[in-house]
């Protein structure tokens, strides 16, 4: 395969990307971005230039089911309020660090946001809240050259118990074993500058 030209590199390389969140999904996306040439920085790394931010807070160690009748205010705060507050802070910080040059924001969400989940009302609320934050910021910040989109993933990647949540689909995955690495790298690259408020779902086709 021929080496890409410099102009192709300019439009396809993810650049410097901040990944916000901890857990297997954040780790997987960080590694995928590094393998595709991104300079991946953490939430607290001091930097002088940022090209993209990926918000991936979903960690099976925390995203646990609770029967709705047993859900406490502390549970709801941890799931809904803290996730939303962190998402808002991450978006605003990224916008600041884009420093007027534009950039890309990718907000990840499990498809539980769209399908709902038994014993997961609190986390589904957070997931769909983050999904809509992507649409609102896409609309408001698009004119500044900031493109914001969503990357939706299989609940099995990020829920402590995706079985209790209930099936997303009655069908088998159309593409078993699909990985989000190429898609997150694309969404972080300048090539995604024309996408706004879109959701790319990489779950093998469970959710359509």
């Amino acid at each position, binding site marked *: 395969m021929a080496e890409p030209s410099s102009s192709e590199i300019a439009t396809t390389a993810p650049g410097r990307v901040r990944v916000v969140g901890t857990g297997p999904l954040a780790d997987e996306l960080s590694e995928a971005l590094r393998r595709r040439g991104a300079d991946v920085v953490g939430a607290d790394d001091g930097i002088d230039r940022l090209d993209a931010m990926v918000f991936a807070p979903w960690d099976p160690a925390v995203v646990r089911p609770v029967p709705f*009748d047993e859900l406490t205010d502390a549970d709801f705060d941890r799931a809904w309020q803290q996730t939303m507050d962190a998402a808002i802070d991450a978006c605003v910080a990224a916008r*600041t660090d884009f420093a007027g040059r534009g950039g890309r924001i990718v907000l990840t969400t499990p498809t539980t946001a769209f399908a*709902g989940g038994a014993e*997961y009302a609190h986390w*589904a*609320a957070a997931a769909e809240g983050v999904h809509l934050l992507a649409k609102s*910021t896409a609309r*408001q910040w698009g004119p500044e050259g900031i493109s914001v989109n969503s990357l939706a993933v299989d609940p099995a990647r990020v829920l402590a118990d995706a079985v209790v949540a209930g099936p997303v689909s009655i069908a088998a995955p159309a593409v078993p074993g699909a990985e989000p690495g190429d898609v997150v790298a694309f969404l972080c690259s300048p090539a995604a500058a024309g996408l706004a408020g879109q959701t790319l779902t990489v779950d093998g086709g469970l959710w359509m």
Partner: protein
Amino acid sequence: MDVTGRLEGRVAIVTGAGQGVGEGIARKLAAEGACVVIAARRAATGEPVAESIRAAGGVAECIVTDVTERAPIEACVAGTVGRFGRLDVMVHNAFAGGVASRLEETPADVWFQMSRTSAWASFWCAQAAHPHLEASDQGRLVLVTSPSGVEGSANIPLYSPAKAAQRAMAKSLAREWGPSGITVNCIAPVAETPALAGAFEQVPELRGAIEARTPLGRIGDPVADIGGVVAFLAGPDAGYVSGQTIVCDGGSFLGL
């Protein structure tokens, strides 16, 4: 009032029923024969609605309810069951905090108001109502969301996540409560209300934009256009509808 009786014998709570969409829903449910609790933040708005429903031959009572806290919601549910002996229909409609702003400049108290009245209050209303909805043979939870909770909003960016949370909760509860026969749905209305009038004051071009995009060419009436859809969801004909959002906006949003 023309009482048709589709909800005869049913007991409903409508939050935010002192004005606007909530008032429209309460009036329609009462017209269908339900005993309606007007859960309003202020007696000054809730009592007149209850009184006018009673004057028209319906059954209504105002219970002053601040939905930004758990305790008043639990007290409203307990008061309703104490007064009427049951609760079949919980409608959470109350909302506050829809102020236009840049995301990066949104005051913390504005986000707090939206988050509390939308996501948190939906949680508390659902949890408080659940044992009574389960005891009913026609348990219904209806959450009032917004088209902005599906499409996103450039004007009030955090309004959309606050309203989106309700749809995801409704889908989740539809799954979790389905086995006990309870349905959980959302409506996403656009209606002539004080809240929309306020939005038009903040963003004057909004009215024209909405009307231009609305095939039916008008902004909805809270009683006839919105209340009727909630009466359907609350009634016997909607027992096999759950986890859905019905967008009541004159055909404006066509994305579902």
